[in-house]
C-alpha cells in the first residue's frame, strides 16, 4: 500500500511543472527575483530601472525581455546585481523564470 503513495508524491511536482512551466516559474520568480524586481517600496532593481527610464520598471510586467536577456542577467549580473550560481538558480529554474516572464 505504501508504494503507490510514495510514487504519487514524487510525480506530483513534475506533473505540475509539465502542465504549466510558467506557473512553476512564478514560484521561482517570487523567491529569487521579486525581492529586487517586484512592485512596492524598497525594490532596488525596480528603482534602478525607473531611474534609467525603463518602463514598466517592474520586471514581471515587461513584454520586451528575451530569454537571452534574462539568462545573461542571471548568469553575468548587471551593475550591482551579482551573478547567480547554479546551486541557487538551476538551469531548470532559470528556464522556468524565462517561461514565467515571457508568458504574456
Amino acid at each position, binding site marked *: 500500500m505504501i508504494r503507490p503513495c510514495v510514487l504519487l508524491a514524487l510525480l506530483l511536482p513534475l506533473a505540475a511543472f509539465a502542465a504549466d512551466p510558467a506557473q512553476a516559474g512564478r514560484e521561482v520568480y517570487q523567491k529569487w527575483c521579486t525581492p529586487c524586481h517586484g512592485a512596492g517600496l524598497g*525594490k*532596488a532593481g525596480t528603482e534602478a530601472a525607473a*531611474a534609467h527610464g525603463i518602463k514598466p520598471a517592474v520586471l514581471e510586467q515587461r513584454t520586451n525581455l528575451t530569454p537571452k536577456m534574462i539568462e545573461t542577467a542571471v*548568469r553575468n549580473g548587471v*551593475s550591482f546585481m551579482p551573478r547567480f550560481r*547554479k*546551486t*541557487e538558480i538551476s538551469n531548470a529554474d532559470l528556464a522556468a523564470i524565462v517561461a514565467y516572464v515571457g508568458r504574456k
Partner: protein
Amino acid sequence: MPLPPGVSARDFQTVLRQFEAVVGKDWVFASDEDVELYRDSYSPFWHEPEDPVPSAAVAPDGVEQIQQILRIANNFKVPLWTVSTGKNLAYGGSAPRLSGSVVLDLKRMNRILEVNDRNHYALVEPGVSYFDLYRYTQEKGLNVFIDAPDPGWGSPVGNTLDRGGGHTPLRDHFSTLCGMEVVLANGDVVRTGMGALPNSRTWQQYKYGFGPYVDGIFTQSNFGIVTKMGVWLYPMPEMRFSGTVSVPKHDDLIPMVDTLSYLMNSNIVLGTTRVASSLTAQARDPELVALRSKPGGASIPELEEFLRRKNLPYWSIDLPFYGPTEVVPAQWAFAKRKFSAIPGVQFRDGATNKLPPSPEDLAKVANSVPLGVPSLAIFTAMERIGDGHIGLSPIVPMTGEAVFEVMDAFDKVIQEMGIHNVSVVPAGTYYPRSFFFLFNFPVVHNVEENRNMRSAFKRLVQVGAEHGWGEYRTHLAFMDDVANTYSFNNHALPRLHETLKDALDPNGILAPGKSGIWPKRLRKARA
C-alpha cells in the same frame, strides 16, 4: 580556469571524477562558464590577473559527502574554499582567497532542523538563508523575530561565521551562536558546546558545554567546515518605536554618545543605530561648499552658525526601542530625561510599528529589516554607489572624541589620495560597547581607479591600526594586510592561528589565506 597550486592537470581531472562519484555529475562545476559564477561580482580586481578565480566548485548534500570530498582533497592536496550561501558581497562573494581553490558550495544543505519558539532558537544547515528561515517561521506561525543583516539572501551560518551584524536587539550574530557541528580537515565530526554530550537536551540553550570554549576558532577562520549551527532568536516583541534625539553643537556629541552608551549598555535602547550629522545632507549647499573651500577650511563655530541659521541640529541619532507596549513609551521617556542634560537638545517621535507587522504595514515601509522581515531593500542605496563596493570597517571606541578622531584621520587620507565617492556610515552600533564605522569604497570596471582605491584602502587600514582601530572583517584582497596589523608581541596571535592551522589541517586544504592564515606549505604567499 587555473589549476589548484601544485596539482597537475591530470591529477585534477582525477579529482573531479572522484568528486563526481561522490556528489553526482550535476554538482561538480568545472566548465569555464560555471566556474565564472563563483567569481566575486564586486571584485576590486576587475580585469586584473589578481582577481581570484576558483578551479572548480563542488556542492555536497550532506556531512558524509563532505567527509569523502575531504579525503580526496587531502590525497591530492587540493584547497577547498567553503561557502554557505556564498553572498559575501563586499568581502569577496563566493570567490576564494587563493586562485585555483575548489569552492565547496554548501547551498544545497538547506534544511531547517528546528525552530523553537518556547526557548527561541533555530538549528540550521549552511544553505538556509534568512529569507528561508523567515518563510518557515511564517508558515508555522512561530513566535520568533529574525535579526537579519541588510541583505536577506545570506545565511545565519555564513553571516555568523564571518561575524556579521544585524539591526535589531540581537544584532551581534556571533553572540547568538549556540552550538555547532563542524567537520575537521581529517573528516572528524565535532559538535561543540552541549552538542558533545550524546543525547544532549540543551545544545541550543547553553553555549559553553564543558572545558575550553572553541566555537570562536571556527569563525573567520579555516579550521573546519561548519555543517550545522544553532542560533538564538528574539522572542517576538510587541512593538518597535524609534525616537530621534538631536543636539545643536559640535562638542555636544561627547555627552550625547556617553548617554547613548549608558542607554545601550543598560539594554534600554536596543538595535542598530548610528550617529548622523546634518552637514552630510547639506554637503552640496553652496554656502557650505564656499565655507569649506576657503583656505584652512571651515571652522567648527562657522559650521555651527551655518546649521543654526538653517535651524538644523549638528548631530542626531535615531534611537530604536523594542518591547512591550507598556514599556517602550517609558523607555523613551527615560531616554529623553537622560539626554535632557545637554543644552538645546531636541526630541522627535518617529515611527511606531506593531510587531509582527501586518502585510499592510509592511507595504508602507521601504526597509523591513528593522521589523524582523528580511529584505534586499539596502540595494536601493547601491544605485548611488555603482557596480559594487567593498567595505572598510574599523571598530572604534564608543565616544564622541573617537568619532571626531576617526573622521579627521580618515578624511585626510581620502582627500590626500584623491578617492571620490566613498560613502560613510559613521559610528554604527552593530556590535555592543563599540562603534563600527563603514566606509564603502565603490568598485568600478576600471583598472586604474580600482588600483588607487586599493592603495587608499591599504593606507587606511594602516592609519586605523596606528590609531588603535582594527578592522572587524575584510575583503579577500586585504586579509593579509589586516592580519598583519594584529601584531602585538611579534604577531603572537597570528602565530597562534598558524599553530592551530598546522595541527588541525596539516595538508593545508581548508581555505588557505582566510583571515591571513596560510598553511605551512603556502605560507610564503603571505603579503
